[in-house]
């Protein structure tokens, strides 16, 4: 894709470019399609038999080539010219509009989120999906601090999520402490691990940093798997207590001295209550994450994160200590993953290392990158595309991952810097000519 922006190629006649590109596509797809589609092994009786599917293979190649030609034609349409240079194009209007109405959209979304569980259509399934949605939003916002704002590429973010989850799971099952006591502890432990990871990687940037963080994520997972005495290894920890509502438990009947939630409010017991309570809990946690990040962006520390992403040398010459800035980004990003982890384990009632594999890190990173690095709204949209759409398309089973991939490709073609890849200034001044007015603060 990058070739098409190459001036030498762009100077060729469009037809020639399209033909060459189509041939190239056909060739690449052919190589991939022979083993994946052309040949298939079927078990006949007890033996394996090699079946060929050449017509299907050529149909796939044809479809790919057609798609590629259409993509090129679309790119070369006359109005596409500015989009190659300034990033202004189809999606720019979306983010420009989103930018100017960001506050209103935020309020509307929040009200909708609060109202969701009381809507006539919302059953247990809807609220459950919404909860999953919010977990990923929260993780995305947390990672946004590290990757989006501070520019530190972290491929092992799920490690902190795991630390938070296991902190709550272990303390709750071993010591019997309540969720509300463990929640800050989970954040604290995760932040400590964030600093632990931060120290050795202070000097690393870009690809090298990504490799080390990837390794760190794997170390945590492998320790959790193999330290059987402490973590019960691959069996995981089950029977993790559910949170209570200021001491009122969510069950039909409660032991002596404990009230149930239903009794407290004098309503009939419903198993739905806990699901809704968990939903509001994660909504509050995610809300705190968002408000915190928005505030941070306007404080010197948050500004220093963004400055560090732009230029480390300039930061140093302005008296910013890169060590502190990086460590604070790692610690705070990890802290929110820790909170989310504690929530995850209390919601599931069960944790095992299986929930914290690399693919989780990859998805969270994809959420941040596709959303547009540093954009809070972008994260929400990206979670929608990456977590909710596959859930909705569950009926399509076989084509789920195909749609997932297509969505990713589409976003990268239409908006290479992410859905909301347009950094909003934290402060905007009125243009000169309207003197004497106070700076207007935008979110």
């Amino acid at each position, binding site marked *: 894709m990058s070739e098409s922006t190459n001036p030498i190629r762009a100077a060729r006649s469009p037809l020639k470019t399209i033909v060459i590109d189509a041939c190239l596509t056909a060739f690449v797809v052919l190589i991939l399609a022979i083993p994946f589609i052309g040949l298939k092994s079927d078990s006949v009786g007890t033996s394996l038999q090699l079946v060929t599917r050449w017509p299907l293979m050529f149909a796939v190649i044809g479809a790919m080539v057609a798609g590629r030609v259409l993509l090129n034609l679309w790119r070369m349409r006359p109005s596409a010219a500015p989009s190659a240079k300034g990033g202004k194009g189809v999606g720019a209007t979306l983010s420009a509009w989103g930018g100017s109405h960001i506050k209103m959209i935020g309020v509307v979304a929040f009200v909708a989120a609060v109202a969701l569980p009381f809507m006539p259509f919302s059953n247990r399934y809807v609220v459950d999906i919404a909860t999953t949605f919010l977990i990923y939003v929260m993780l995305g916002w947390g990672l946004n601090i590290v990757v989006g704002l501070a520019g530190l590429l972290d491929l092992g973010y799920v490690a902190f999520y795991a630390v938070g989850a296991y902190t709550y799971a272990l303390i709750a099952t071993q010591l019997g402490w309540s969720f509300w006591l463990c929640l800050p502890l989970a954040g604290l432990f995760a932040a400590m691990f964030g600093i632990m990871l931060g120290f050795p990687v202070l000097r690393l940037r870009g690809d090298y940093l990504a490799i080390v963080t990837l390794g760190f994520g794997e170390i945590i997972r492998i320790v959790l798997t193999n330290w059987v005495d402490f973590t019960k290894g691959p069996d995981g920890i089950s029977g993790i207590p559910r949170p209570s509502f200021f001491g009122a438990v969510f069950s039909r009947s409660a032991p002596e001295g404990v009230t149930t939630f239903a009794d407290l409010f004098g309503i009939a017991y419903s198993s739905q209550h806990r699901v809704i309570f968990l939903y509001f809990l994660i909504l509050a946690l995610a809300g705190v994450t968002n408000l915190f990040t928005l505030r941070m962006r306007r404080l010197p520390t948050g*500004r*220093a994160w*963004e400055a560090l992403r732009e*230029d480390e040398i300039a930061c*140093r*010459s302005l*008296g910013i200590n890169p060590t502190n800035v990086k460590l604070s980004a790692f610690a705070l990003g990890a802290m929110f993953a820790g909170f989310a982890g504690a929530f995850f384990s209390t919601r599931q009632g069960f944790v095992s290392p299986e929930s914290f594999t690399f693919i989780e890190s990859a998805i969270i990173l994809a959420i941040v990158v596709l959303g547009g690095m540093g954009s809070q709204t972008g994260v929400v949209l990206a979670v929608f595309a990456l977590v909710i759409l596959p859930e909705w398309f569950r009926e399509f089973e076989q084509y789920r991952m195909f749609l997932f991939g297509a969505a990713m490709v589409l976003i990268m073609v239409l908006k290479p810097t992410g859905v909301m890849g347009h*950094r909003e200034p934290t*402060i905007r001044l009125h243009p*000169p000519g309207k003197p004497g007015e106070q700076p207007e603060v935008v979110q």
Partner: protein
Amino acid sequence: MLKIEGVHTFYGKIEALKGVDVNINAGEIVTLIGANGAGKSTLLMTVFGKPQARSGRVLFEGQDITRVPAHEIVRLGIAQSPEGRRIFARMTVYENLQMGCLPTDGSHFEDDVRMVFDLFPRLEERRNQRGGTLSGGEQQMLAIGRALMSRPRLLLLDEPSLGLAPLVVRQIFEIIKKINEAGVTVFLVEQNAFHALKLAHRGYVMVNGNITLSGTGRELLDNPEIRAAYLEGGH
């Protein structure tokens, strides 16, 4: 004001500065000229503590700052406009200036922004514009303006003329003169020897990590060796 005494700086095993002595008095514009790779930028960066000098001393107003970490030096009253400008491309002009006042307590931020906008009216016109969308000259103005936001007594400028049109270079140098007249001591590292020497009170010439010549700007401009090596070639 700034005294550099016998400074040796290394990159690994490579000795970039081989015992450099430079002295800058308060109120002066001092320039350091030399060819590519002579060690000019290294000297400026050594003053700022990254990389640190392996031997020798850097004294600022009598205080030894050789081992002070880079991010604390700016708090002592030295500011740097680094080579290649290094403004924050995705932040607005205004936000870039805000970054510059981080080392201070921020109480005179409004006054300082006014001062920078008075020096560079172009920046005021573009204050909500992203740094990366400015022209090269405007970016250089922003880099200098950002450095001034910490209210330095000594301003280090690393190649402010780099990649700029001759007309813009002249503008920048005039502003450097204004800044100096307002009481800021300036240490200017330049390849554009002609302009730099014309502006500076005194100058040093660096060749391969050694200071080979020094004198007033006028003397160096008239020196036939300097003329041959640095001035006759288009300037």
